[in-house]
């Protein structure tokens, strides 16, 4: 299911001295089944954009089209669109509330009005996905570690079985291993189940490793978007908005100072880089 955002504007607290134009003409296309990363520094409007897509904030101008559903300044999102979209907020573990892990995860599917057996099945499935031991189902979520709580919260959204999964910095504040696990889970949901994933991040390295499409926000505008190659070849634009290139790209650039002919700069995984370097070495040894 494709998401198209055109000329989106969101103004907070209009008519007061705290008025703030958080989004100012954002354009974005998220192809169905893609893994799209939304990048940008703090305050660039990332969270606002995804909340507008999820129908939690009404735009002041512009349109958002999700499949065949349309939202604009006058049209509120209906419940049937809402259930297509799963939104994981920043620090989602701060929204846990139920007595047990299972009950908290069941909140979403229960609100959908599913029968109890179906709800139980989904809770089990979601816990398995996020790697939570089934023994934890009857524990209080507040007795778990921070990383486990994060997983419970994410499971709570997965249990809705959304077609589009949007996550606001889901890895923030986790240890590197925990980050890796959450992001590979997203990749798996994207590849194996065709879930469209939108990942908000300010970590270029992480984004480039998992996403296949990118959208860079700066000061409430979309300044760059497209494939990794299209976005990360524009170091000039990125640096003018205080964004760095991914570490791997900077590394390739560093190598290229010594290499002739240079390596292509659109290498975004270590495996790929390793393969290229290996090829070169073989070529040199052959003659």
């Amino acid at each position, binding site marked *: 299911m494709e998401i198209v955002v055109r000329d989106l504007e969101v103004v907070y607290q209009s008519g*007061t001295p705290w008025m703030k134009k958080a989004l100012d003409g954002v354009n974005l296309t998220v192809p169905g089944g893609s893994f799209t990363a939304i990048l940008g520094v703090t305050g660039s409007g990332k969270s606002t954009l995804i909340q507008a897509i999820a129908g939690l*904030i009404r735009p002041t101008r512009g349109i958002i089209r999700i499949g065949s559903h349309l939202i604009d300044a006058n049209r509120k999102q209906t419940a049937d669109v809402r259930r297509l979209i799963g939104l994981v907020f920043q620090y989602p573990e701060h*929204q846990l*509330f139920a007595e047990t892990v299972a009950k908290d995860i069941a*909140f*979403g599917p229960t609100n*959908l009005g599913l029968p109890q057996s179906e709800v139980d099945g989904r809770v089990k499935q979601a816990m398995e996905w996020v790697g939570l031991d089934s023994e934890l189902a009857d524990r209080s979520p507040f007795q778990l570690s921070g990383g486990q709580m994060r997983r419970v919260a994410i499971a709570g959204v997965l249990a*809705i079985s959304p077609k589009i999964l949007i996550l606001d910095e889901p890895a923030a504040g986790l240890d590197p291993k925990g980050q890796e696990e959450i992001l590979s889970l997203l990749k798996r949901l994207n590849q194996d189940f065709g879930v469209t994933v939108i990942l908000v991040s300010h970590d270029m390295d992480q984004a480039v490793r998992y996403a296949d499409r990118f959208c860079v926000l700066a000061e409430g505008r979309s300044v760059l978007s497209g494939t990794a190659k299209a976005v990360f070849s524009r170091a000039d634009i990125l640096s003018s908005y205080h964004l760095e290139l991914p570490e791997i790209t900077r590394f390739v650039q560093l190598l290229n100072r010594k290499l002739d002919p240079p390596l292509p700069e659109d290498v975004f995984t270590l495996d790929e880089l390793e393969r290229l370097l290996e090829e070169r070495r073989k070529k040199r040894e052959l003659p």
Partner: protein
Amino acid sequence: MSQIVMGQYYPGDSLVHRMDPRAKWLFLMVFMIFVFWANHLRSTAVLLFFTLVAAGMARIPVSVFIRAIRPALFIILFTMILHLLMTKGGEALLRLPFITIYQEGLRQAVFVSARLFVLISVASLLTFTTSPIDLTDGIEWLLKPLQRFKIPVHEIALMMSIALRFIPLLWEETEKIRKAQTARGADFDTGFFIKRLKSYIPVLIPLFLSAFRRAEELALAMEARGYRGSEGRTKWRQLRFSSLDGWLLIVAVLLFFVLRFLE
């Protein structure tokens, strides 16, 4: 998306904004006494008129003002209806099958709601025009005499300033949690009283937890920076009375005589 809450500061540069917070606090206290002293519609009308003029001088947009005191407006409306229906006396103005409205009921309804409105408006005018720091510095100065009786005035003022700082934060947090639970299909807008109350449990529990977490973090941060309470602490910001505050005194005296004449 309007996040104006009661007790919020509305930055500005009006005459009222520039008055000394101590003067404004003192005036507020005297004015509250006036409000309870005024037992006639006409004197309450004078106070109401004064409040509206003061609000105009503070240059707070009417929409902002209304939005901030909206929760209180509901209470006012409620008391108004109660008085209208329950107070008996005087001539019957309107007779319906189950309801009779008496003259005295109408008078009480107008009087009590005007009085409540004045009280709430003047208090919000103080918080609208005075920054939280000024508010607490002002109250600390006013309560200082109580230190003789071993009352921890500085700590009380600090508690107040923290509370004022936390109101908008908790409000923001509430909105965020509400949105998050809405995204999981929670429904806050349908059903009757009990069902609605219940639907807020998924918001209230995380909200309490977050309040405790913030309190703990703040306590830690204060300790880490060596906060030791009031002893030996000096203030960088000094309050100063100006001629503006003299005017406030004159207004208070004038109001006193007007009320004495009307009562």
